[in-house]
């Protein structure tokens, strides 16, 4: 996996994706508002997991955005995942 994944690029990509998917969104995605409050459907939630996979080059559960439903909680989860992966690699 790519250890030096760029957090900001990922955040931007997720935000861009949500803006594209939701009608009438003004282009600003608040990072602590849940994807479902923003009006994202379930397929959209799953697509976020694919965006993360593409960035990180690791397998991510398709339901990760259901379990961590805001941008900030997702990033926190990915940080933890990254640390776990690095530790595993170092063992």
């Amino acid at each position, binding site marked *: 996996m790519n250890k030096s994944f760029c957090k900001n690029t990922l955040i931007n990509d997720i935000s861009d994706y949500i803006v594209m998917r939701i*009608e*009438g969104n003004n282009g600003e995605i608040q990072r602590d*508002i*849940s994807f*479902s*409050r*923003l*009006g*994202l*459907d*379930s*397929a*959209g939630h*799953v*697509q976020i*997991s*694919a965006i993360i*996979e593409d960035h990180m080059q690791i*397998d991510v559960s*398709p*339901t990760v955005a*259901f379990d961590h439903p805001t941008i900030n909680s997702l990033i926190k989860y990915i940080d933890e995942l990254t640390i776990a992966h690095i530790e595993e690699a170092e063992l």
Partner: protein
Amino acid sequence: MQKQLTNTTLFMDAIRKYAEVQPDHLACVFQPRAIDTAQQLSYQQLYQQIEARSQLMVSLGYHNKVVALLYPSGLDFVINFLACLNSGVIAVPLNVTRNAKQLERTIDIIENANVCAILTTEDTKIQLCDQLQEIVDGRKHNFAWLTEQNETTLSQSLSVVKASDIAFIQYTSGSTSSPKGVMVSHSNIVDNMKAIELSCGLQKGVVLGGWLPQFHDMGLIGHMLSPLYLGGTYIFMPPMNFIQRPSRWLQLISHYRIFCSAAPNFGYEHCVKLISDREDLTDLDLSCWKVALNGSEPVSAKTMAAFAQKFSPYGFNVQSFFPSYGMAETTLLVSGGPLQSGISVLNLDKDSLSKGLVTQAQVGVDIVCCGEISPHFTLKIVDPDTLQECSKNQVGEIWLNGDSVAQGYLNNPVRTKTDFQAMLASDNAKQYLRTGDLGFVVNNQLYVTGRIKEVLIIRGRNLYPYDIERTCNSYPYANGGNGTSVFTYQCGTETKLGAIVEINKRFLATIDEQVMTQDINALVFAQHEISFDKLLVTRPGTIPKTTSGKVKRAACATLI
């Protein structure tokens, strides 16, 4: 052997036979991601595990009782479902819920079906028990849990299972307020296996499967049972893994040389939209895919054309498209095929069609043919009001009679009588299933034009506007009553979902509109896993209604 099997009266007789005569043949392959994630079972392994689970259930006294199967996609579901068939335990396959709100609906079904035990994995049990604790409804639940940790060393002979016994209950239709469990008998299963074999041109040893959920009729009967009945191989992956990366479905078909794979229209559309040109598809060869079955939501000729264009360079043959019609109430398949007939479309005059008349026109409404009616059914097109058979150029309700038609709705004698035991005005010798779908027949080919009752079909799921409206009305600031309208509207060729929710005047003045929109979005998503393309919160009295107070959904669409 073929000869012996034609006399098979129960599905499990076939499996038992294959475990004897082709023990090492692959029965199931579950592959969630890349090839190295595949798990498989031979017929012998499958049968051994079925036997062990059957012994356990019989020793617990579950024969003729109802159990719920709440499994994530996987081999456990196959083993446990077939163990139920084997031991005469009535299975209710259900979706594993993601939160307590969704579990509440499952609990309603569990109560409706009088379930005595939940069969699941240990991991899923923990997840469900957590959700269960969040539900405070004062109800006591009397069901037991059965996981892989439960075993028995007892060996006893299994009870006799009769062809007329109920094999399983399929909850697919019915609104939340009145869940309808379709009672499918053992002989229904076998009859529909034969109907599918004939319509889809399946051969012994067929390789069949895809990503459809196992708890749903198309995935259960079509993908899982059909290949096993023919001594073939059931290949599958979790639906979510398809949604995440749709190319996985096509790779699965290509790698395992799948002959028949089904999806609702949105599955094909998902591939068109989300498989990007950057993906490496060099090894993809779809020439094996002879039955690309499309069912459970209206078939779009446009989607089919786009799919064919995108994937014909990879060996996909446009003639392999196989639009079909079926439902849980008929076990599964009613019409489809014949093999390699592709898509055919009738252009109908719009004005005539709105009056229920079939008049072909140069330009008009496109209706995709749902294939040849299976000889396992007698199909009538009936005027739903007069109960008289329609003339050839008339649209009417689709009525069905045949050995695949299920036994009725569990614990619901009223609906069973109205829906499963309908009779034509002119003939009271034969009972028919009323499908609630409208259509007509040309040259023994079925065309479906719509539904009598209002039901939204979104991503292959039947949703009832009333259920979603009720959820919106439960929002504390909503005005309630019939102050919510949920409806679909057209945006180009796409069908979108809209809602108008009337808010109590007091709150409309004080609470931020965006906050309320977000609240309602979150509420609806938690319960139904859908989201609105447009949601309007507004003052009371905005929703257009008829003089009798009924919501005019078409007018709502215009308003939005």
